[in-house]
């Protein structure tokens, strides 16, 4: 369903590679199945022509890859960024995580990416082939064929997309987009309105499924610490399934807290979670609170802005006032 086709991107990548503007290209490559497209670094025209893909499964946000890749690269890296990716890109620049000079960023418009889990829910197991387009055509090994409207199986983050505007790029393909009104806080508000016991049950049901694979942390463009607290062998919580109530919550509270004020709400954590835990609801809770306590703030909207947690005013709200005026 994407307006920009693979061929346009391939042509662009090859020409920039051949005229020496960039030395390599960060792009998407087909995985084992049509739907598990993975990020890859392409270094030659042949590789690009053979493996480069761009379709509805290109959700991966490349910003974080730049942190490691720019260190090694001899020249500039070409990177394709969707609007939401550019926010993460800016946030990383704000934190001085990579050298802007070593990147050539092309902004590409995005019509929303597909959620394979929603497709699975419709088509069932055994998906053998998927063709993207206005209608997503799914074949299964059992011989079934399904035609699904791409609009019906969008990723949650795309349904609640906050911006079609690229906030950073060297070159833009397609038209300049706009920041859009989204309903992304509705679900958080719905949870807030529940009774404490309902909410407790909701989170227990969600968080107890976590297998601590750390995928949410690894994919997060805000989580770029060289040494992560969760890898500390002395912490007793590194890389193992949570043993109890405490460990479950601890990981999620701390992970979300570490990115509070820096999370751009790119939605990658929820996309990669193999257990389908709605992690964005934790991040968005912090964003919503920050907006209401300290004024609206969108991480990554501009380079160099000061994140709310490394900032203060002398008449900030007191922790005891947090719950005032919320009824109950």
């Amino acid at each position, binding site marked *: 369903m994407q307006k920009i086709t693979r061929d346009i991107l391939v042509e662009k990548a090859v020409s920039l590679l051949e005229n020496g503007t960039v030395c390599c290209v960060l792009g998407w490559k087909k995985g084992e199945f049509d739907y598990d497209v993975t990020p890859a670094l392409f270094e030659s025209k042949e590789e690009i022509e053979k493996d480069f893909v761009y379709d509805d499964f290109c959700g991966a946000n490349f910003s974080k890859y730049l942190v490691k890749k720019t260190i090694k690269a001899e020249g500039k890296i070409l990177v394709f960024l969707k609007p939401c990716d550019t926010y993460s890109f800016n946030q990383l620049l704000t934190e001085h995580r990579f050298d802007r000079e070593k990147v050539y960023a092309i902004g590409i418009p995005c019509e929303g990416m597909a959620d394979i889990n929603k497709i699975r829910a419709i088509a069932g197991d055994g998906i053998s082939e998927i063709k993207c387009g206005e209608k997503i055509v799914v074949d299964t090994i059992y011989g079934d064929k399904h035609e699904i409207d791409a609009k019906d199986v969008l990723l949650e983050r795309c349904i609640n997309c906050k911006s079609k505007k690229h906030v950073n790029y060297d070159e833009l393909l397609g038209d300049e987009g706009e920041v859009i009104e989204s309903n992304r806080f509705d679900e958080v508000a719905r949870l807030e309105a529940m009774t404490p016991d309902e909410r407790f049950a909701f989170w227990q049901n969600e968080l107890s499924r976590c297998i601590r694979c750390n995928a949410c942390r690894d994919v997060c463009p805000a989580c770029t610490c060289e040494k992560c*607290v969760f890898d500390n062998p002395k912490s007793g919580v590194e890389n193992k399934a949570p043993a109890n109530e405490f460990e479950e919550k601890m990981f999620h*509270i701390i992970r979300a807290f570490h990115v509070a004020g820096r999370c751009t709400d790119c939605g990658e954590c929820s996309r990669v979670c193999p257990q389908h835990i709605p992690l964005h609801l934790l991040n968005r809770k912090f964003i919503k609170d920050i907006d209401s306590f300290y004024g609206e703030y969108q991480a990554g909207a501009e380079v160099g802005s000061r994140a709310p947690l490394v900032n203060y005013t002398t008449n900030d709200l007191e922790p005891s006032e947090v719950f005032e005026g919320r009824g109950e």
Partner: protein
Amino acid sequence: MQVKEYKPLIVAFCCNWCSYAGADLAGNNRLNYPADVKIIRVPCSCRVNPMFVLRAFQRGADGVILCGCHPGDCHYTSGNYYTRRRMALLFSMLDYLCIERERTRVEWVSAAEGAKFAATMNDFAEKVAALGENKRLEDLRCKK
């Protein structure tokens, strides 16, 4: 069989420059506050990271309170302003995950406020006692 009376375990993080001295003053003045308040001295209230709070709960605390200098009086100029933002967000998140909100608190206590220190602890301990044991963030392996 005798049933052991339930007394909440409370962890109080007190900054070295104000609240810890406030606690001292409360002691010197022979003011009563519950013996189950365990004070942990920190250089500044902003030394307390969210993990400390969660760890305290893990190890069996029923309530966690942070005490620091009054806003504007921090020994390091601005530490408690950061504490204020962090804890406001953390407490709100704990409430979102349904850890009872009365179990956490931040209070500004200066070195001259021994009476306020004792009163705060009495009040906090009472509120926490009313909630009973912390069940929602406990780690049974840490229980004796």
